[in-house]
Structure formats: C-alpha cells, structure tokens
C-alpha cells in the first residue's frame, strides 16, 4: 500500500490552525469577494451617519462618532461571518476538512484568525474614514483605539464563527445569524463604544475608563473564544 504519500507525524495544533487561516486568506486574496463587500458596507454606513449627524463646521460628539464606528463594524462583520463557512459548505469541503487529523479547535481558530484578519483590514479603512469625516481626535490615541477595535473584533468573530458553523446547513442562515448573534454581542458593542468614546473625547479623554473597557473586552474575548473552542467539536460533529 505504501505510495509516495508517506506521512510524517501530523503537524502541530498551531500549524494546522495557521494553514486553515492561510487557505481562507489566499482564497479571499484571489476573489476579494468578502473583503470588498465588508469594506463597502462599512463605508456606506459611515457615510449615511455622517450625512445625518455632521453639521457643517462642527464636530459631532465623541459618543456619536464611537457609536457610528462600532455600528459600521458590526454590520460589515456580520456579512463576513455569514460567509465564513460558505467555502466549507460548497462541495462539502467541510467533510474533507473534518476527516483530516487537524484538531477541531485548530479548525475553529484558523477560521477565527482569517475572519479577524479580514475585519481588521476593514477597520483600518473605517477608522481612517471616521477620522476624516468626523474630524475625530484619533492621532494621539490611535494605538489604544486600535487595541479596543481588535479586542472587540476577536470577541465578535469568536461568537460569530461559532454560530456560523452551527448554521452551516441551515436555511435562511444569514437572517438567523444576525438574530442569534446580536443579543450575544451587545456587551462587546457597549464596551467598545464606551471605551472609544472615552479615548476620542477631545476635551477630557478618560484613559482610566478606557482601560477598564479594554480589560472588560479582553475578558469577553477569553469567554467567547473558550466557548467557541469548546462548542465547535459538538457543533460540527452534530448528527
């Protein structure tokens, strides 16, 4: 039976996760299908709110800018998450993936990493646009805002990837995903928007308050990623 396909010991957990993430990003780099849609939606949301809230010559209040950024992030992210497992569903590639020795949690982390990477690219555009349109004071606090965004994205994508996998074969999964996901991610959006507000307040930025929300987001990330790692196996193996 021996052929040229001699196998070495199965690659380690993190290498498997990285390969799955790299596969998703390579496919997306080629098609730019999901990234283009996410970025387009984020830009449209920001533009619509800017027309509604920005009065010429004035700067909108910090809570409004923060709210717009996080709403745009959630809308764009939902589109990305709805497509997260599409390529696994088409042609039943998920079955081939599940038959490999890659641990289920590594598959989950690979999908999560790719989703976070795509959302991060959208966030760069989103943050730049918000800075220009709302004259937001981002320069001095960009690092802290970026940390909030990344932590919020990880928690959001962790919960979203879990639900997206659960809805892999469901009809009307796009609508179901939003219905299931949004109540769960309310704490993330509140923490992200409050933290961002405190950071970009042009008069009195509250760094201590922002630090609290950053830590809160980190705790939510630990919770959602742990739950995702634990739930992914029974979800994808469900029979």
């Amino acid at each position: 039976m021996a052929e040229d396909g001699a196998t070495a010991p199965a690659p380690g957990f993190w290498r498997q996760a990285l390969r799955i993430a790299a596969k998703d990003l390579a496919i997306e780099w080629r098609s730019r299908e999901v990234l283009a849609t996410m970025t387009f939606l984020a830009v449209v949301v920001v533009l619509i709110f800017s027309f509604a809230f920005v009065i010429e010559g004035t700067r909108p209040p910090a809570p409004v800018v923060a709210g717009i950024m996080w709403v745009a992030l959630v809308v764009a992210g939902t589109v990305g998450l709805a497509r997260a497992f599409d390529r696994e569903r088409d042609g039943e590639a998920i079955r081939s993936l599940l038959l490999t020795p890659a641990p289920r949690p590594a598959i989950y982390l690979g999908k999560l990493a790719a989703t976070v990477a795509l959302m991060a690219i959208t966030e760069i555009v989103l943050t730049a646009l918000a800075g220009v349109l709302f004259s937001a004071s981002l320069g001095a606090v960009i690092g802290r805002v970026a940390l909030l965004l990344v932590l919020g994205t990880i928690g959001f994508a962790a919960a979203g990837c879990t639900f997206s996998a659960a809805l892999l074969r469901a009809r009307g999964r796009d609508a179901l995903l939003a219905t299931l996901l949004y109540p769960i991610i309310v704490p993330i959006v509140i923490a992200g928007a409050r933290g961002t507000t405190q950071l970009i307040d042009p008069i009195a930025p509250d760094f201590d308050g922002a630090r609290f929300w950053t830590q809160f987001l980190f705790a939510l990330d630990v919770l959602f990623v742990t739950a995702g790692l634990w739930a992914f196996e029974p979800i994808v193996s469900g029979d």
Partner: protein
Amino acid sequence: MNHVDAAPLRLSKVGKIYGGRRALAEVSTTFEPGRIAAVLGPNGAGKSTLLGILSTLIAPSAGEVRWGEDRLGRGSLLRARIGYVGHDPGLYGDLTATENLTLFARLYGVADPRARAAALLARVGLGEAAAEAPARTFSRGMLQRLALARALAHDPALLLFDEPAAALDPTGADWLARELSAEREAGRVVVLVTHDLAAAAVADQVVILRRGRVVFDEARPGGFGVEAVRASYDTRTRPAAREANRG
C-alpha cells in the same frame, strides 16, 4: 506502515437512531483489506449513515466498529488513515487542483506535499493545464478524479466511496471501475456505497441493506459481476416482484 493498514474492519451490531427514527439496526459485517465491498440498498436503507459511521463523522447509537484492535468512533484519530470520496467532491472550488491537493497533503502531514500533488494529478489523469485551474471550472468527471486524488493524498488504508459514479459518463464510470480495482490491488479496505448495480459489479463482497438491516452479505473472491449483483439485489430488496415472477 500503520498498525491498522492490513487489518479488517469489523462492525458488530451497529445501530443508529435519528430522533426516534431507526436508520440502522444490528449491522454486523467485516470488510477485509484487498477487497472491494459494495453496500447496496434502496433509498433510506441506511447506506450513507453506515458510511458516515465508518468515516468517524457519525457516532453509532449502538454496537461498535473495530479496525484491527482499535475502536473506530466519532472523531477517532484513526480518521487520518481514511480516504473519503463522496458524490460531492469535498474540495475548495476557488483553489486550483494543485492547491487543493497540497493543502490536504499538508493537513495530513505528507512529507513532500507538492511532489505528492503532482504525482496524484498524473495518476488520475489531470494534466498540467487542469492542475493550475480552479476546481470550480472542472467538469463533473474531472472533479471526481480530483476528489479521488484528494482522498489518496495521505495513502489511506481505508477508502470509502459514496455514490462515486453518480453523474459520471460511461468513460468516467469505466475509469472509476479501474481505479477501484487498483485500490483493491493496493491492499486497501475499499467500501463502496451505491445505487448503481453496474458500478458494484467490480465488488467481491456485496452487502445489501433494507430498512437499516443487513439482508444479504456475501463475499465472492474475483468479483460478483453485474448479473450476480442484480440477482442478489432483486431477490433481497424486491420481495413482491420476486413473488410475482414466481407466479
């Protein structure tokens, strides 16, 4: 060579219940290496469920599957020794044939994934042009060839086929029959689930399921042939027709 490579696959009173509906009941049989076993049966007989259990993707509700000394359960690490060819190709349409094979070879820990991909593409008759084309541009026959190459990427000891001949033209069906024979010669355990009695003619063990139960299980070294398969199938799955013919 892995310790399961030359071991038979033994099913002992395997059952599966989905939400109160029985899909399989007390299925006991043995699939030997170097033999093609065809699992036949009408719609709803439990063929695909059986294949799901053998592939470790579905857990049995009762009984057990042993591969050599090891128990084959859902998520078992022995899945790394299984190759699966379904009626869906199990491939990423946006990746090229080479990229698909390289990806899966890497996930299985194959020592030289690119060389393995090239060798497999040559083996299944997909030329250089096809190798660099996205899988979504492939015809049904080409997809099935690529699916077989993907299933062989890690040199599995157990090969499972679920309706592999569905939608294949006669040339493709002939090619598939030759490949099945080649896998038998290679000493793998080959289990083929199909509706197509002609595709099952190459088998040297036929298991017929009806309403989740084994109603026929016989091995004939050297192969059944299409007439013998058809006769066994008709006898075991169409009792009413049989009675009418007798009358």
